[in-house]
C-alpha cells in the first residue's frame, strides 16, 4: 500500500506541479492572483476532449494544439481584463476579484458550449495499451499515470532551459522589479502576454494529461484543481519557481497519504489545516526563502 500511495501521489503531484508552476509564473511576474487559471484548465480539458474523442486526432498533435489553445486563452484574458486593469492602475484585490469573475464566466461558458454533464474521454487507437496495468513490486501503475509523470518531467526540464533564454530571463526580471525592467527598455507588455501564455499552456498540459488518465472531463473540474494549485503555491512558496513545483508534488503526496491514512472524505480538510499552519508559522512557504509581497 505504501508504494501504491507513493505512485498515485507522484502521478497526481505531477499534475499539480504543472498547474502550480503556471500559476506561480503568473503570480510572481505580474503579481496577479490568477483565479481564472482553473477555468483555463477546464477549457483546455474540453478542447482535448473535442480533439481526441470527437475529431479523433492522434495524441501528440492533440496535446500540442490543446497547449496552444490554453496559451491563447491566457493571452485573451490578459487582453480583455488584465491590460485594461493595468491602465487603471488597479490594486491587487481588484485583479483578484476580476479574475474570479472571469473564472465564473468562463466556467459557465464551457458548461453552455459543451454541456454541464461529465463527458467520457475515449482514445481511439491507444485505448488498450495506455490503460494496461503494470506492476511495480506490490503496486500497480497504468501507462497513462506513467505518461503523466514522464511528460511532466520533460515539460519541467523544458521550462528550466527556457528560463535561461532571453525571454525566460526577461520574465524573471519583470517579476523582480517591473519598473527597473521597463526602464531598461524591455518590452514589458509583450512579456506580460508571453507570461500568461506560458503559464496557461502549462495548465493546459496538466489538463490533457489528467483527462487522459481519468478519462473524464466536466465543466466544474477547474475549481478543485484551482484550490489545490493555490495551496501548493502558498505552501511551497512564491519566491522561486522550484518551490511551487515542490509544493505541487507535496500536495499530491499528502492528498494520497491522507486518503490512505484517514479517508477520502476528509483529505481536503487535512490539506486546509496544513495551509493554515503554513500561513501561521512560515508565510514565506516551506521552500521559499523570503516573504512574497502581499496585498499588491
Amino acid at each position, binding site marked *: 500500500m505504501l508504494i501504491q500511495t507513493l505512485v498515485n501521489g507522484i502521478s497526481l503531484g505531477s499534475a499539480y506541479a504543472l498547474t502550480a508552476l503556471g500559476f506561480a509564473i503568473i503570480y510572481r511576474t505580474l503579481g496577479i*492572483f490568477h483565479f481564472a487559471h482553473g477555468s483555463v484548465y477546464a477549457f483546455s480539458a474540453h478542447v482535448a476532449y473535442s480533439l481526441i474523442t470527437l475529431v479523433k486526432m492522434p495524441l501528440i498533435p492533440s496535446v500540442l494544439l490543446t497547449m496552444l489553445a490554453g496559451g491563447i486563452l491566457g493571452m485573451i484574458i490578459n487582453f480583455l*481584463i488584465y491590460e*485594461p*486593469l493595468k491602465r*487603471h492602475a*488597479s*490594486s*491587487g*484585490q*481588484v*485583479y*483578484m*476579484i*476580476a479574475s*474570479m*469573475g*472571469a*473564472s*465564473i*464566466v*468562463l*466556467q*459557465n*461558458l464551457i*458548461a*453552455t458550449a459543451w454541456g*454541464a454533464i461529465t463527458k467520457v474521454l475515449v482514445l481511439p487507437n491507444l485505448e488498450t495499451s495506455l490503460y494496461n496495468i503494470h506492476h511495480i513490486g506490490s503496486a500497480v501503475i497504468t501507462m497513462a499515470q506513467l505518461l503523466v509523470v514522464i511528460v511532466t518531467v520533460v515539460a519541467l526540464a523544458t521550462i528550466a532551459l527556457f528560463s535561461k533564454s532571453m525571454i525566460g530571463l526577461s520574465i524573471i526580471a519583470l517579476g523582480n522589479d517591473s519598473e527597473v525592467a521597463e526602464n531598461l527598455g524591455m518590452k514589458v507588455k509583450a512579456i506580460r502576454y508571453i507570461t500568461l501564455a506560458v503559464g496557461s499552456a502549462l495548465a493546459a498540459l496538466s489538463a490533457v494529461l489528467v483527462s487522459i488518465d481519468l478519462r473524464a472531463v466536466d465543466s466544474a473540474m477547474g475549481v478543485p484543481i484551482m*484550490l489545490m494549485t*493555490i*495551496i501548493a503555491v*502558498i505552501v511551497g512558496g512564491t519566491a522561486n519557481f522550484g518551490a511551487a513545483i515542490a509544493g505541487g508534488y507535496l500536495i499530491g503526496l499528502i492528498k494520497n497519504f491522507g486518503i490512505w491514512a484517514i479517508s477520502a*472524505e*476528509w483529505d*481536503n*480538510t487535512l490539506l*486546509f489545516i496544513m*495551509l*493554515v499552519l503554513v*500561513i*501561521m508559522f512560515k*508565510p514565506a512557504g516551506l521552500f521559499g526563502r523570503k516573504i512574497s509581497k*502581499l*496585498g*499588491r
Partner: protein
Amino acid sequence: MSVILSILIQLCMYSILALGLNMLVGYSGLVSSATAALFGIGGYLTALFALHYKLDFFVILIAGGVFAAVLGVLVSLPALRLKGDYFFITTMGFTWIITNIMTNWMQVTRGPNGLTGIPSPLVFGQVLNSRFLFFILILIITALCIFVANRVCTSPFGRALKGMREDDIALEALGKNITAFRVKTFVFYAIYCGMAGTIYAYNMRFVDPTAFTSDESIFVLSMVVLGGVGSIKGTLVGVLVLGIISEGVRYVGLPASIAFQARQIIYGLILVLFMIFRPQGLLGQYKIT
C-alpha cells in the same frame, strides 16, 4: 402571494448578508469568500436547534450569529494578520471544510439529504404560522441590522475603520491595533451572516449542503461590488438590482440548466466589468485596495 413573500424574505436575507460583507470589505479592506460558510453555519445550527430543542426564534437567531462568529474567527485569525490574497484563500478553504462537514458528518447533518421539516418559528412562546407575520418580523430585523450597521459606521469606531482602510500604517502609528480592528469587523460580518442563515432555515424549512456553496459567496460579493464597497445605501441597491435580475432570469423562460448558467455569467461579468470600469461600484466612493 406566498411566492412573493418568500422572495421578499430572501431579499431581506441577502441585505443582511451583503451588509455584513460590506462592513468587512468596505472597512477593513479584506475580501472574504467565507460568506456561504458562515451563512451555512447559521442555517444548520438553526435547523438543529429548531428540530431538537424547540428554542425561541430570537435565542436561535443570536446563537446562530455568535456560533458563526466564534468558528469564523478561530479559523481566520491567522489569516486576519495578513492582507489580501492569503486571507481570501483561507476563507475559501474554510468554506470547503464547512461543506465537507455538512456532507460527511452523517449523524448530525444527515449528509447530502439535508435537514428537513424545520417547524414554524417560536416567537416569545407563540408559534408563528403566518407567512405574512414572519415576513414582518424579518423586515423589522433587517431594518435593525441596517440601523446598527449605519450606527457602527458613523461612530468613532467606524471612523477608525475608515482610517484603517485608507492607510493602515498611519493608523498603526497612531497606536491603534490593526489586527484587533480586523477581528472586530470580521466578527460583525460573521454575526450578520449567521443571522441570515437562521432566516434562511426558517424561510425554506429545509437546509442542505448545496445551498451554502461558494457560488453563494460570490453572489453576495457581486451585490456589494455592484452597489459600492463601503456604502450602506449602495449595498442595498446592489441587493435589489441583483435580486431582481436573479429572479427575472427565472421567469424569462430559459430552460433551467441554461438559466442557472446565464445567471452565473451575469454575476461574473458584473465582477469583471465593475472592477475594470467602476471599481467603486454604483454609489460607493471608495476603491478596493
